[in-house]
């Protein structure tokens, strides 16, 4: 959307903007739904510029749980929901924005962001125009709703930033003469709150970072402010992350289809894929890692990117939308309503020989990275696998479609990652099925919970048994540090192997063997009965066997089991019980 469009909108809606304002120094006292859309779009673009920066703010230098990517994909989903909406009124736009964020929420920060939008939508449910007073009310409601999204709110996170922004907005609404001045005060409060996060959350101080989710929220608000100031949000900080924005007015000339999918494979070259896909269309978005890549492109030939990607790996969540049709529908061009795009039902990562299922009226959905682990979970009776966790955190919608793909009305979700637990809880609140979340935060816990499942027991009993089982297992994970850091009194150098025990970084070393043996010692392996090695990226079956032999020598009384996990990023996931 160009500045001229805003000016035109303003002309059409005299109340919307004061005087001859154009975006770029706009001093609107109010804004309408379409102008709000433009601000969101700017926030999205600005966030996009900062993805790598935000991703780098992980407390533990582990290569997953990317907050920047999660928040971007969440906001992107929200944007997709409003991009084609023609309403002038603010209420339906914020309503759609909240819905899009809710469905697209990924990771804890994404879920909280979606609750922020939900709060705003509630406060603006009958608003025609947004003014400074309404904005203050919306930000306060946003903060309150966000705090309610988590069971134990922690200060020094995105929640603090949302609250400080809301607090600042009260005074700002009184002193600011227009929305731009008000947003400037709000953004400044958010910036200060981000800076203070390390003093509120010691783990951040120790890692020498600010809170990633808080930074993400600040960046979004800043992007919106930049729009009001007429500043560019396209400044390319990271050339490889360049994204051409979607145009809300309608499809580009000749680009008739909106194509989205997730590609899973091995050794995927994200930069190469981005370049190739970009050559096939416009509005390219390619994010991900060597195992999972999310692709989004507008193209006249939807088959081209699909064929291209199918050669590189397997596709899931394929969505192809005819933008021309949608555009015409939105314009009210007298066409029959186009049904919403039907997402392809979520597939497990690999076809499985169907295990004769136990007869149960309870289905189990598990979020699992890697084909090997997916097979293990399937073999233990998981009804549907949502790939991801350590690579890409699944969205609320992905979890929901996995739930909806089941015949059972009662469903238990195993998130298997602490950054998926909130998303799973959000999915629960959005489904009419009886969903329960057993909050497993790693793969061994997920397996322990699965084993506790009894197909002859009822839902409540199973949830109780499975939740109890989470505490009956020790989980160790080995990966490589993505940056140098000193944490838990441990000096970690980038590229070193690091070991997490039950979620805490406790070990670092030059070789996998050193770190694994150290983890086992810290785990108290001599007291255990079974040690299971799930080997993943970069480890061959022979490597794993050799390590198991070494462990068996050191722990002769323990049973050592080696299982192919195929999980990305983590050469070993180890369970002790």
């Amino acid at each position, binding site marked *: 959307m160009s500045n001229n469009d805003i000016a035109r909108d303003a002309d059409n809606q005299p109340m919307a903007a004061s005087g001859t304002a154009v975006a770029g120094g706009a001093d609107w006292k109010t804004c309408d739904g379409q102008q709000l859309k433009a601000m969101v779009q700017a926030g999205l673009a600005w966030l996009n510029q900062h993805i790598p920066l935000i991703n780098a703010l992980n407390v533990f230098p582990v290569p997953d749980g990317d907050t920047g990517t999660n928040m971007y994909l969440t906001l992107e989903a929200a944007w997709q929901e409003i991009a084609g909406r023609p309403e002038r009124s603010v209420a339906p736009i914020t309503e759609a924005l909240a819905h899009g964020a809710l469905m697209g929420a990924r990771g804890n920060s994404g879920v909280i962001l979606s609750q922020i939008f939900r709060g705003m939508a509630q406060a603006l449910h009958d608003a025609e125009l947004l003014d400074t007073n309404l904005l203050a009310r919306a930000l306060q409601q946003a903060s309150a709703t966000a705090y309610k999204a988590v069971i134990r709110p922690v200060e020094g996170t995105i929640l603090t930033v949302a609250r400080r922004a809301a607090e600042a907005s009260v005074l700002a609404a009184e002193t600011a003469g227009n929305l731009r001045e008000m947003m400037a005060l709000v953004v400044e409060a958010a910036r200060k709150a981000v800076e203070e996060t390390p003093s509120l959350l010691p783990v951040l101080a120790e890692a020498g970072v600010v809170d990633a989710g808080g930074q993400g929220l600040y960046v979004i608000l800043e992007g919106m402010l930049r729009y009001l100031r007429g500043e560019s949000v396209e400044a390319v900080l990271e050339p490889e992350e360049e994204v051409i924005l979607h145009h809300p007015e309608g499809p580009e000339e000749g680009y008739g289809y909106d194509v989205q999918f997730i590609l899973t494979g091995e050794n995927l070259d994200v930069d190469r894929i981005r370049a190739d896909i970009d050559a096939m269309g416009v509005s390219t978005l390619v994010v991900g890692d060597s195992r999972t890549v999310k692709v989004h492109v507008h193209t006249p030939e939807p088959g081209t990117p699909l064929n291209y990607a199918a050669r590189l790996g397997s596709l899931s969540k394929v969505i192809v939308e005819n933008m021309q049709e949608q555009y015409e529908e939105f314009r009210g061009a007298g066409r029959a309503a186009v049904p919403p795009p039907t997402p392809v039902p979520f597939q497990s990562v690999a076809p499985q*020989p169907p*295990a*004769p*299922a*136990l*007869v149960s009226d309870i289905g189990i959905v598990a979020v699992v990275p890697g084909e090997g682990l997916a*097979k*293990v979970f399937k*073999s*233990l*009776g998981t009804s549907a696998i949502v790939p991801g966790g350590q690579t890409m955190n699944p969205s609320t919608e992905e979890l929901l479609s996995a739930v909806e793909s089941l015949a059972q009305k009662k469903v238990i979700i195993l998130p298997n990652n602490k950054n998926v637990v909130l998303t799973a809880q959000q999915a629960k609140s959005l489904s009419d099925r009886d969903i329960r979340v057993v909050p497993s935060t790693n793969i061994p816990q997920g*397996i322990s919970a699965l*084993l506790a499942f*009894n*197909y*002859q027991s009822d839902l409540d009993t199973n949830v109780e048994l499975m939740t109890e089982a989470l505490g009956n297992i020790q989980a160790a994970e080995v990966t490589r540090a993505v940056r140098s850091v000193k944490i838990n009194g441990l000096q970690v150098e980038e590229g070193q192997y690091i070991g997490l025990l039950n979620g805490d970084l406790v070990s670092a070393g030059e070789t996998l063997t050193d770190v694994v043996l150290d983890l086992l010692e810290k785990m108290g392996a001599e007291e255990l*009965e*079974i040690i*299971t090695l799930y080997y993943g990226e970069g480890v061959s079956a022979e490597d794993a066997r050799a390590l198991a032999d070494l462990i068996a020598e050191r722990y002769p009384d323990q*049973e050592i*089991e080696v*299982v192919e996990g195929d999980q990305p990023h983590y050469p070993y996931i180890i369970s002790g*019980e």
Partner: protein
Amino acid sequence: MSEREIGIVTDSAADLPPALAHQWDITVIPCLITFGSETYRDEIELPRQAFYQRLRATKILPTTSAPSVGTFVEAYRELGRRTRTIISIHVASALTNIYNVARLAAESLPELDIHLVDSRQVSMCTGMLALTAARLANEGLSAADIIARLQELLPRLRLVAALDTLEYLHRGGRVSWVASMLSSLIDLKLVVELKDASLRLLDKVRGRRKSLLRMIQHVLESGPLEQVALLHADAAEDAAEVRRLFASYTPPSGIIETEAGATIGTHAGPGAVGFCILTR
């Protein structure tokens, strides 16, 4: 040997220790075990130790079958020389056709008063019914009264076992859900329960010791124990460990220890340890 007026019969799938069977004058009809083309009478022609040696060595799973009608007729006639009234107590009719064969034999002997009892159980759960029947008969109760008492006991019987392998249960083909457990890519130990002639999965755990502990826990959670038997399928060491762990929970009646015979052993597989219990 008592001079009571009621004869008590059971089958070898009841796993009654031979000494107890002798002491209580209970006639045990041997089931048949077939390895390939060779058929043996349980225990009589194939002692337990020899059976488990073959079971562990063989690639072909042995099959178990009910004794012939003729075997029952012979046994009933033999008893009939001493007493007209016989109570014949057998393992679950839903799981084997032993009961049905006994019924056919009984129908062919209208001159005798044979009462059949379907224990809806196996192994020492059935065995405990036979022992109870013998005790009540010794006390002089009528057949009708004894059977009424046995009927009261049926719902209080429970078998809880920790299996070392699922292979035998699966190959035995009697339990459909086992197949889904076999596909597990990690090693699982199952704790199962037989109650009212159906086998249920109680727990699936990692590790042998954990499965034995879970089994004990399930037994203790069953309620106050009146009679307890501990049996094993060629797993004397584990059974001894279980007995040690269970020692302080032993009921006043003590614990009957026994080794699973070929019929139960073929289906549970070597290494299984189990409790047969009668709750109060």
